[in-house]
C-alpha cells in the first residue's frame, strides 16, 4: 500500500517556503527556452549515466538491460520537464519516483548527489554550449535551483512516506502509532524533546 502521491506533493508544497519553491514564472521561463535546452539532452544523459555506471553502488542498480533503456528514465524526465506544464500531475509523478526509487534501491544520497551534478553541468552548458547571455543564464540557473530543491524535496519525502506506509501496512501499525513510537523514544533520549 503506497502513500498518496497527491498527499505527499501537496504536503511538500505546504512546507517549502514560496521563495524557495519552483514558481509558475520559473516554469514559464524554462518552457520558453525549451527548444534550446532540448539540445542538452544527450550531453546531460551521457554525463549522468557515465557517473552512475562508474560507481559500483549505482552501477549495481542499473545492471539489468541495455544502457540505452536505463537512459530513457532521465531522457523522459528531461523532455517532460521542458514541455511543461508543472501541474499537479507533474509533481505527483515526481512523488511516484520516490516509490520507484525505494523499489529499485536508489537512495536519497544518490539522487541528491546527482542533482548537484546536473546543476553544475547545466551551469557550464548554458554559457559554454548554448551561448546564452549571462543574464539569461543566471535567471535560468535560478529556476533550475528552485526546480532542484522542489523535485528533491518531493522525491525524498515520498521515499520516506512510502517506506513508512509499507512498514505500517506490513506490521499492522498505523502511521499515527509509528509517529508516537518515534516521539516516545526520542523523549526518552532527550527530556527537552518531549512534546
Amino acid at each position, binding site marked *: 500500500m503506497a502513500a498518496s502521491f497527491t498527499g505527499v506533493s501537496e504536503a511538500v508544497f505546504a512546507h517549502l517556503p514560496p521563495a524557495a519553491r519552483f514558481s509558475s514564472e520559473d516554469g514559464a521561463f524554462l518552457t520558453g527556452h525549451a527548444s534550446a535546452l532540448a539540445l542538452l539532452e544527450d550531453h546531460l544523459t551521457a554525463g549522468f549515466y557515465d557517473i552512475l555506471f562508474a560507481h559500483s553502488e549505482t552501477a549495481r542498480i542499473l545492471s539489468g538491460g541495455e544502457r540505452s533503456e536505463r537512459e530513457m528514465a532521465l531522457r523522459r524526465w528531461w523532455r517532460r520537464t521542458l514541455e511543461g506544464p508543472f501541474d499537479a500531475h507533474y509533481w505527483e509523478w515526481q512523488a511516484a519516483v520516490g516509490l520507484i526509487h525505494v523499489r529499485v534501491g536508489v537512495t536519497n544520497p544518490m539522487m541528491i548527489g546527482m542533482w548537484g551534478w546536473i546543476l553544475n553541468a547545466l551551469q557550464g552548458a548554458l554559457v559554454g554550449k548554448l551561448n546564452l547571455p549571462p543574464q539569461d543564464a543566471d535567471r535560468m540557473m535560478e529556476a533550475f535551483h528552485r526546480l532542484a530543491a522542489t523535485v528533491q524535496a518531493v522525491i525524498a519525502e515520498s521515499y520516506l512516506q512510502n517506506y513508512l506506509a509499507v512498514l505500517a501496512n506490513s506490521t499492522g*501499525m498505523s502511521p499515527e*502509532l509509528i509517529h*508516537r513510537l518515534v516521539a516516545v523514544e526520542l523523549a526518552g533520549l532527550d527530556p527537552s524533546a518531549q512534546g
Partner: protein
Amino acid sequence: MAAADDLNTILGRLRASVPELSAALVATTDGLPIAHSMNAGDANRLAAMAATALGLGRRICETYGGGEFRETSVSGDQGQMYIYSAGSKAVLGVVARSGANVGLIHLEARDAASQVSQILERR
C-alpha cells in the same frame, strides 16, 4: 470523562482480583494511554508497546488465517505482559510477576477487555 472513570474502575477491579499484577492499562490502537494503574514505569511507553503488539498480532492473525486477533503475550524470566484486543479502538495490557496465576489473569483480563470494548464502542 465518564468513560475514563468507568475504565479506571475496570482497571481497579482487575488489579484487586489479581494482586500479582503490577500494571494494567488501556490504550488506543494508536498507542495513546487512556487509563492506567501502574506501580512503576512509563505509561506512554507501555501504551505504545501494547498498541504495537496489537497491530502486529492482528497482522500475524490475518497472515496465517487465524481470524480476529484476541490476545498475545510476551514473557521474560522475571515477568510477563499480556495484551488483549479491546474492541476495534483499544487494547488492554497487563503486567504480572513471574509465577502469577496465568489462568486467573486470562479469566479476569478477558472479561475486563470486553467491558472496555463495550464502553469505548458506545462513545
